[in-house]
């Protein structure tokens, strides 16, 4: 599949800016729930798709924004490579552009780093229809401001992603997941200990009284790890990690508001009135809070921040509020890239 929709997208952006018509950027529409609701004409990215370059020896892949995430992952897997941040799909139609724009990462985040660490370049369509190429396809690049990385998690408020170039990494030789029965406090302690050490821990999650630890490396290393850490070997680890990444685990069922808290290492359990699902070796914690309860303050108190990830009442702020000078900067940057304010207005914050 190789379709270049640049011309149509540019035309649509220019017209929207000229007529001050709000636009909702749509990839696979799998993450529509994330962020605030946007009322706008769809800017459909799916017609702009295709993997442009992947030379395994370069550890770089470049694809059009509308390329299905599954296609990107299949291409990488056929060469023994992967996206190190293990992004969630939240649906079969997920695109690579939407993946970068949402900035979300899966279980490997704590060991591999966030999505933005792997953004090398981007071709961006601004609100007023300019097509700008930032960054590149090389590992090190400090020419100009790092606008490509600025797109990671920007939720389309600065531009639509026409192409992205990502650093990719080889898959590991093997993996093994161990399960230990522990309560929340002891699980957090154990995760803190393990993430300080040198063991190849690539995912650590706790749910329903069980701590799940994924290690990657050679067989000999995994045998040594198993001896040292103990616990039971999980027979179908891929299904487990997929259910956490894609939020198909029963914890995520139902319609109670889902809060995501990211906290610094060693943060204590948060007093939010429910038992969390913990990921990222303790740094990401999910809560199902009663309607009307907000997690902003609880997360802020321990030096982290909270997001109302799903099932909010609508028309409320879902991201933690920004300090006034920071908000002014956001507005100024938005104005530079989207002078008419037509791109995903209100998706991140009400007046952005």
């Amino acid at each position: 599949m190789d379709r270049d929709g640049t011309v149509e997208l540019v035309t649509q952006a220019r017209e929207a800016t000229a007529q001050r018509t709000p636009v909702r950027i749509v990839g696979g529409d799998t993450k529509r729930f994330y962020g605030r609701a946007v009322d706008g004409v769809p800017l459909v990215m799916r017609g702009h798709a295709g993997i442009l370059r992947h030379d395994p020896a370069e550890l770089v892949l470049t694809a059009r924004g509308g390329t299905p995430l599954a296609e990107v992952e299949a291409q990488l897997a056929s060469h023994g490579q992967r996206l190190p941040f293990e992004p969630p799909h939240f649906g079969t139609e997920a695109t690579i552009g939407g993946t970068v724009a949402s900035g979300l990462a899966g279980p490997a985040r704590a060991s591999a780093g966030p999505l933005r660490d792997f953004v090398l370049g981007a071709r961006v369509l601004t609100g007023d229809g300019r097509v700008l190429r930032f960054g590149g396809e090389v590992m090190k690049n400090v020419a100009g401001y790092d606008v490509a990385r600025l797109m990671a998690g920007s939720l389309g408020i600065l531009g639509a992603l026409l192409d992205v170039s990502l650093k990719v990494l080889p898959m590991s030789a093997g993996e093994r997941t161990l399960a230990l029965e522990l309560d929340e406090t002891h699980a957090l302690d154990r995760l803190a200990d393990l993430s300080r050490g040198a063991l190849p821990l690539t995912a650590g999650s706790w749910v329903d009284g069980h701590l799940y630890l994924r290690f990657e490396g050679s067989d000999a290393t995994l045998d040594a790890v198993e001896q040292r850490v103990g616990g039971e070997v999980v027979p179908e680890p891929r299904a487990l990690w997929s259910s956490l990444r894609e939020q198909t685990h029963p914890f995520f069922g139902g319609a109670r508001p889902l809060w995501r808290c990211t906290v610094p290492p060693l943060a204590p359990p948060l007093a939010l009135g429910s038992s969390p699902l913990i990921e990222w070796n303790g740094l990401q914690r999910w809560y199902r809070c009663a309607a009307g309860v907000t997690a902003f303050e609880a997360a802020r108190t321990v030096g982290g921040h909270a997001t109302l990830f799903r099932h909010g009442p609508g028309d409320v702020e879902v991201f933690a509020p920004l300090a006034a000078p920071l908000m002014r900067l956001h507005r100024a940057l938005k104005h530079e890239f989207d002078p008419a304010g037509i791109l995903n207005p209100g998706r991140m914050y009400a007046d952005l």
Partner: protein
Amino acid sequence: MTPDPALVRDLRAALGPDHVLVSAEACAPFECDALNTQRHRPDVVALPRSAEQVMEVLRACRRHATPVVARGAGTGLSGGALPVAGGVLLVLSRLNRILELDPARRLARVEPGVTNLEISNVAAPQGLYYAPDPSSQVACTIGGNVAENSGGVHCLKHGLTVHNLLEVRVATIEGEWLVLGSSAGEAPGLPLLALLTGSEGMLGVVVEATVRLKPRPERVELVMAAFGDVRRCADAVGRLIASGIVPAGLEMMDAPAIRAAEAFAHCGYPTDAAALLLCELDGLHHDVQCDLQFVEALLREGGATSLRVASDASERLRMWSGRKSAFPAVGRLAPDYFCMDGTIPRRHLADVLERIGEMSHAAGLPVANVFHAGDGNLHPLILFDAGRPGDIERAEHLGAEILELCVAVGGTVTGEHGVGVEKLGPMCAQFGAGEIEAFHGVKRAFDPDGLLNPGKAVPTLARCADYGAMRVHGGKLPFSHLPRF
């Protein structure tokens, strides 16, 4: 130029009279950074000792509409800390306290004037270190590292500054405090910490940085492989990366660099080799053992004429010493040198090195190559004699040609040294008017009056028009036969 007396009065009131320099002899040491072909003696040097004093300096500069240039240790290679006419030089080296070392959370919170190596030194008793290790790490400061997004020989596996930075506190020229990033690893809103990293002091002044510390690896091995020709060595680099191994460092040197480094550091390099590869592996004991065997076999099959694995830590450090001192070592071969910093896709390594050899021959100026092969980050060192008429111009022209070649094969004009004043021209080869204008837009958002480090990092469109007129021949960009992307 005599500085504005009202400004000097304000600065002295804020910092105390001893911490504001105005005399020619006191200001002279600050006239350049490590790009010493460009010099401008500052009119005023401000030496704050606290974040609040930094803010006072910025507020005073804004009040008096005076440009201000932040400087750490002055080790930058692109003139990013070159003082600007009529401006204040804000020297941050006295903000040099380690505010917090938290081994349990594996992080350090430091002031911007703390040196890169000091962080690793204080963390060492805890078995931790700060991963980015630019060659200047003994002297360069963390504030400067943030401004330049510094790398080093281990960033292929362990990342650049941007990958090891958690949070910064920034004073803006508008007189406000910003906290970007978070020790939680992410913060709400746009990822402005990533935007600020590598912004060359144009967007704000970092007064505090929280960095991630890593545990020392269980085992480290260094393999040195010699090759009879550059192409075989470059091809081995590509095969090694494609094989799925991510070395901690993968460094390459050509014959002139090998011989200069050996003469300088006596590190045991084979001086008859055409190319030398240093490949460091780190990690868990068993994994390193497997990788080591694999890498040895791969390099042997790739045509390495000799192969040596460092027998212990002291031999490893000796083998690294040649690489780490390669710049000063090559510097002894000629009165002056320019260090270029282009990055290219690795698949073009051999072709680009060959082409640089031809350009060097045509220009009549020797070039030595010592570089981060794993990242494709080249450091061609152009040797010249500034005392010989025309040499500087020829060296600058050759440098620009080399950088244009890097852009033409899909690379960049600077991998880790920054644009500063040095690469303003070549920036015009890499970016079009739209991108350049967008960069100015980013600058406007942070610094509407253009007072922070003005004239650096991003060329004006007028300058690019001049650059284009100079370098575009017959309506064609250089290397027009090569694909551009």
